[in-house]
Every structure is written in C-alpha cells, then in structure tokens.
C-alpha cells in the first residue's frame, strides 16, 4: 500500500475508484475532515444543496437519469435526520444511493453528544443496508461494499455512518472493490432466471388469447437494454403492454402496443385489459395497492407470471402461478431467445379479437377533456400542450412533485425511453421534483429538465432554487397552479362530502417575484391564449425558470379507481358518481 492516508482521504479515493463524479451534500461539524479532503482534490464535484432532504432527492434524480449510484454527504444529527425522507423515498422506489453521514467520534457515541443521533438505528428501516465505520482501516471495504449493495439485486439506498475520528485517523489499509464483493458471501442476488421457468413462461404465453405485459420500474433499473428487449418482445409477440408509474419509459408510449399506465389513475383500456386478461406477464413490478385496487377482484381469471429480482415481492399481495426470480433484462433476453427458437406465434384469431376489444376500450378516450378556446387553462391542456411542444426534442427529462399534476404528467406526457421520467411513486413525497430535476440537470447539462409541479408541493423544497442559481442549472419549474392541494381536494370532494378541510393553498407567494428573488426568471400565464407563448418562454429562457401556469381550480384527475374499488369501477368524468358508496374498508385505505 502506498503509505498512510486519513480515513477521509481513503473515503474519497474509494468514491473515485467507484467512478463517482458528483456528490450532493451539505457540510457540518461531523464531516469537516471529509469536506477538507474534498477541497484538496479535483476528481469529485460537490453540489451544495440547501437542505439535506434535497441532497437525497437530487442524488435520486441523478441516479434515475443515469443508471448510476447517486451519492450524498451530510453531517451528523440534523443532517442525517433531514435525509431520512429521501432515503425512504429511494427505498420505496428502488433507487441506488450511497449516503455518507457524519457521526460524533466513536468515544462519544451513546453520550448524547452535540449533534449525535442514532443514525444507523434511525435509518435501519429506511435503507437497504447501513454501516457504522468504527475504524479508518474499515473505510475502503465499507465504501466498496456499500456501492455493491446499493446497485446490485433490487437497488436501494445504503447509509455509511462515519464517526469524525475515523475520518481523521490514518490507515494504510485499502481494500479493492472486487475483493470486497467476493468476500460478502451472505449477499448474492440471483440475476439469471431458471431456464425451465422461462420455458414454462413461453408455454403459458403461447396459449394465451388475451395476454398482457405489465412492466414496472424493475425494467428501468435493469438498464436500457432491458427496455429495448421488452420493446422487441412486445412487438414480436404482439402482446399489449401497460406500465406502472415507475415503469413509464420502459416501453415506448407512442408505440401502438402501449395501452397506457395502469392503476388508480391509469387508462380505461389498461385497467380493463388487466381485469380481463387470461395470461399476465409482470416484469419488474410489485402489485402495489395503487395498481391492484381491490385485491379479490384483481385480474381474477388470469394465469400470472411474475419476474422479479426480489423474492420477497413474489406472492406478497397477489398469488402468482409462475414466479421467476431474475433481473428483468436477463429474463427478457432468455424469453426472447426461447420464444424465437420455438417459432412461437400467438393464436391469430384470438389476438385479433383481443386487440379489437382493447381498441373498443380505447374508443372511450378516457383522457379526453374540454378546453375552451378562451379563458381558463385546463391543467390537462397545459401538460398536453407542453408535451406536444417538446415531443420532437432529443433530450427532455421530466420530474414531478406529488398530486394531481403528477398524475396528469404521467397520463399526458409520452415517454419513449427509460430514465427520462423522475417521480416519487412509492412514498409520494411532495418536494421531490425540484431537487430531482437539479440532480438530473447536473448529470445532463444539455437536457431540457422540467419539474411539473403543484403550487403546494413546490414550496416543500423551494430553497433549492438557490442551488439551481448557484450552479446555473437551467431547470424549468412548470407549476400547475390550481391554488389547491388538488389531490387532497379531489378526495375530499369525492369521498368526504366536499368538506374541504385545510386543503386550500392560502397565502401563496407571488411565484414570479419569488423566481426573481432567487435570480431566476418568473413567468405567469392565466389565459389559454397565452399558454404556448408562456411555455416557449419557459423552454427558451436560459437559466432556471419558474412558470406559474394558473389553471382551473377544481379540475379532477380521471380516470380514478377509488380506494378499495375494483378495476372495472372506474370513475371517468365528474358526472360519474363514485359508483357504490366506498366501503368502510375502502375508506380506511390511503
């Protein structure tokens, strides 16, 4: 080994050896040696956020848009606790992250020292794994193992808690990444599927008359090749495809085989196809409750094949007939190979009838809305117009906050490629979109990165405008301003007798002035006649922009499957009353 280094220097070296180029962080007393080591090198760039939660979301945006592991650096105590929401978000959405947290020196742990928090204890349930580094000698091993755990298998966030003395102490130990991985024999994710099971899958699918592919974020996590294989397989077999919220972009939305997103705010055709299918191929999705609706009415007559890299996702809520534990890409590769080798073709007449049925459902045009030519802007129209204006551009990355605008973005923006859609699916974290957009913009300086936001959500991490300004990151914040916590208002209207308890966005700031206060550009549009001009200005203006797009206040997001209802119980328009009063079991659901 080439002499002694401090723990902090060893840490930086390990990050560089892992191919890290960017760290999102915020300094404090317990990480000063690491910041000092950062200062004295040129390989790693540090992006200074304005709140540790945002550091984690930014790293998520970076990770989701690049396929690499996102890296976070925060101080002990409040730095670590502020990161918890982001870590939970990354865990729910399987985003690979390594989060370094400072800790009080080892001899003070347990003494209620200044800025001490039991970080490994607090983050144990919201990480895939976590570590406390108790000696500088362990530093390189722990860092390499953390990256391995974060990116392999079902990806997720990993915390490394680093006491200040282990940052300062010297060590001559430097473990190599490959050796560290080989040593961790208790952790060996299965990525290759069992051959016989793929054969069975081909067998089951080949007899289908009403098949569907239900693909999720696992396809995106597997890498762009998996998305290509999925596209190839669906086109070759003629099987319709629906994507989950996390899976958008895993299959080209402009392809005719795509029937839209499924689930609570999914399309009529996707949900009915799921309900009526005879063979379901789930690739990298987890039968989340937003997808299944009422479990005992979920696709009751289908044979279900489930490909997932995480064995605990199988038979968790929905019992399946053929579980296959594998990485989506490997499974799709084998599936395609065996399908082709056997010259498999689906029953022509059956498939024609199935597509006929699907096209009939499509005829319902469940995403239609009416936009008068003058006056108020419908939120759907705002997002659809935005999509049409950027559809032909090469690199457009969209993030969202959480609420109605998020669902409209999922419905009206067509993603043809993976890694261009960043949204908080599992945790539904308001405040995710702006920092995620920042992280994506850092990784893709030339891309048009747009945060489709709600006026309530954006205030949850608005301080990140300063980050965007500091690094001249030209993120565009497209606020669908309905002056309400629209999604809350919608549930109150439909399920709580229109009693709008605390869901009005009182005392909103002037978003144009707010933008200017951060040194950014602010635009406001209130009439549909100005929409395109406003959007053009948002897109074309250099630097960060806040576009305050004032829309109809009380629009609801449809289709909607009320909580606890079945796929066929969709509300399509305001006139559709919630069919049967929602059951007591339904009302307790979130």
């Amino acid at each position, binding site marked *: 080994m080439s002499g002694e280094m401090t723990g902090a220097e060893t840490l930086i070296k390990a990050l560089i050896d892992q191919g890290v180029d960017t760290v999102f962080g915020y300094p404090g007393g317990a990480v000063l040696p690491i910041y000092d080591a950062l200062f004295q090198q040129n390989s790693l760039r540090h992006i200074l956020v304005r709140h540790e939660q945002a550091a984690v979301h930014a790293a998520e945006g970076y990770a989701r848009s690049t396929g690499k592991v996102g890296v976070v650096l925060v101080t002990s105590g409040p730095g670590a606790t502020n990161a918890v929401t982001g870590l939970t978000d990354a865990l729910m959405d399987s985003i690979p992250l390594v989060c370094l947290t400072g800790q009080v020196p080892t001899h003070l742990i347990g003494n209620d020292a200044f800025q001490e928090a039991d970080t490994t*204890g607090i983050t144990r349930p919201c990480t895939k794994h976590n570590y406390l580094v108790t000696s500088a000698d362990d530093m390189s091993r722990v860092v390499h193992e953390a990256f391995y755990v974060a990116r392999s298998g079902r990806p997720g966030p990993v915390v490394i808690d680093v006491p200040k003395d282990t940052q300062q102490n010297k060590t001559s130990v430097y473990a190599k990444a490959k050796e560290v991985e080989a040593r961790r024999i208790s952790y060996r994710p299965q990525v290759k599927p069992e051959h016989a099971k793929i054969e069975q899958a081909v067998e089951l699918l080949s007899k289908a008359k009403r098949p569907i592919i239900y693909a999720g974020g696992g396809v995106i996590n597997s890498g762009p090749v998996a998305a290509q294989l999925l596209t190839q397989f669906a086109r070759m077999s003629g099987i319709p495809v629906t994507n989950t919220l996390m899976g958008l972009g895993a299959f080209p939305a402009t392809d005719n085989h795509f029937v839209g997103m499924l689930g609570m705010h999914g399309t009529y055709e996707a949900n009915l196809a799921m309900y009526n299918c005879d063979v379901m191929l789930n690739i990298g999705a987890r039968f989340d409750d937003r997808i299944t609706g009422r479990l005992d009415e979920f696709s009751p007559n289908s044979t279900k094949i489930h490909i997932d890299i995480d*064995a605990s996702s199988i038979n968790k809520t929905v019992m399946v007939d053929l579980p296959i534990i594998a990485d989506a890409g490997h499974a799709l590769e084998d599936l395609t190979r065996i399908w082709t080798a056997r010259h498999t073709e689906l029953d022509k007449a059956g498939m024609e009838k199935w597509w006929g049925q699907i096209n009939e459902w499509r005829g319902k045009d469940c995403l239609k809305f009416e936009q008068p030519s003058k006056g108020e802007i419908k939120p759907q129209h705002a997002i659809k117009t935005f999509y049409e204006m950027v559809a032909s551009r090469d690199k457009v990355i969209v993030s969202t906050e959480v609420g109605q605008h998020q669902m409209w973005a999922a419905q009206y923006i067509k993603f043809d490629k993976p890694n261009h859609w960043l949204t908080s699916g599992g945790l539904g974290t308001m405040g995710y979109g702006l920092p995620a957009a920042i992280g994506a913009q850092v990784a893709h300086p030339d891309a048009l990165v747009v945060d489709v936001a709600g006026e309530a959500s954006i205030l949850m991490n608005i301080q990140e405008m300063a980050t965007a300004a500091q690094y001249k990151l030209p993120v565009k914040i497209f606020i669908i301003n309905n002056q309400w916590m629209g999604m809350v208002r919608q549930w109150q209207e439909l399920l709580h007798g229109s009693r709008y308890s605390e869901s009005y966005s009182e005392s909103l700031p002037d978003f144009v002035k707010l933008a200017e206060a951060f040194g950014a550009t602010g635009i406001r549009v209130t009439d549909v006649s100005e929409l395109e001009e406003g959007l053009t200005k948002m897109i074309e203006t250099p630097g960060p922009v806040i576009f305050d797009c004032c829309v109809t206040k009380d629009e609801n997001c449809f289709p909607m499957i009320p909580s606890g209802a079945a796929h066929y119980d969709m509300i399509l328009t305001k006139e559709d009353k919630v069919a049967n009063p929602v059951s007591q079991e339904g009302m307790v659901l979130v």
Partner: protein
Amino acid sequence: MSADQIESRVIAVLVDNEPGVLARVIGLFTGRGYNIDSLTVTEVDAGQNLSRITIVTSGTPQVLEQIKAQLFRLVPIHAVGDLTTGGDLVERELALVKVVAKGEQRVEALRIADIFKARVVDAGHNHFVFELTGKPKKLNSFIELMQPLGLKDVSRTGVVAIARGPEALGL
C-alpha cells in the same frame, strides 16, 4: 389446509455476527407486523463469525413465506431454514424455575421435579431453583404445576432447534 389458517413455524437463520444484525431481524418483524413467539441468538461459529437465530413465529402460509423471503433479503443473512416444513426437527428450551415453599408443598415440588427430570441447581431452607430442559410444552406444564406450590420466578431461554438427520443449515 385453508390459506388464512394461522400456523406456527420454527425458522433458523444463519447470520454474520456483526453489530446491528439482531436489530435488523427484530425490526423486520415489528416493522412488517409479523409475530415473534420466541427468539434466541448466539454465536455458533467463532472462526467464521456466524451466529444462529432461532425464531418461532406464526402466521398464514403466505405470511410465513414472506417472512422467509424478507429475512433472506437482509444483507448479512447467509441462510434461512424452515425447520417445521423441512422435515423432522429437535426443539429444546431450558427453564430455571424458582419455587419458595415449606413443609408439604416443598415435598410436592420435589416430587414433581423428579417426575419431570428437573435438576435442583440451588436450594435453601425454603426455596429451590429447578433446571429443566425439554419442549416448550413440557416446560409450560411444569411451571403450571409449580404455580400453587409457591412459584416465585421463571427464566426461560426460548426455543433452539435443529433438523434431524445428517444435513446442516446450508451456507
């Protein structure tokens, strides 16, 4: 067997003996609402730094499968064995039982201890500490019988278990 019938299982888990590993396992059970009827842990292989956890849990067959899959997902876990469905198993628990009694009751306590093959590991003028090994049921009955005779204090290890036959819990 009905799908929502509650069954009891003995699950053996081989883990790296590292800080926090027990907290991970217990946190998994509390966080996901699984039952822990008994849990024991100690190092079993100092050379390889391995500990073995024996968990007695209960749930529907679907939940029990989930428990095993969720356990196996934890990074430091090497092996998860379902000893109940995996074939025959040997289950043992040890109890230390303190009885305070005089006269006729003292004689009766000794007599019962004899029947259960419990050993006296501490005795005084008016107390005994019995040591008893066996299946949890046997320990339960012993403790129940000691109740009216002056049962004062009980300490139990929880169940340890191992599969019958030549196979080991796999690495």
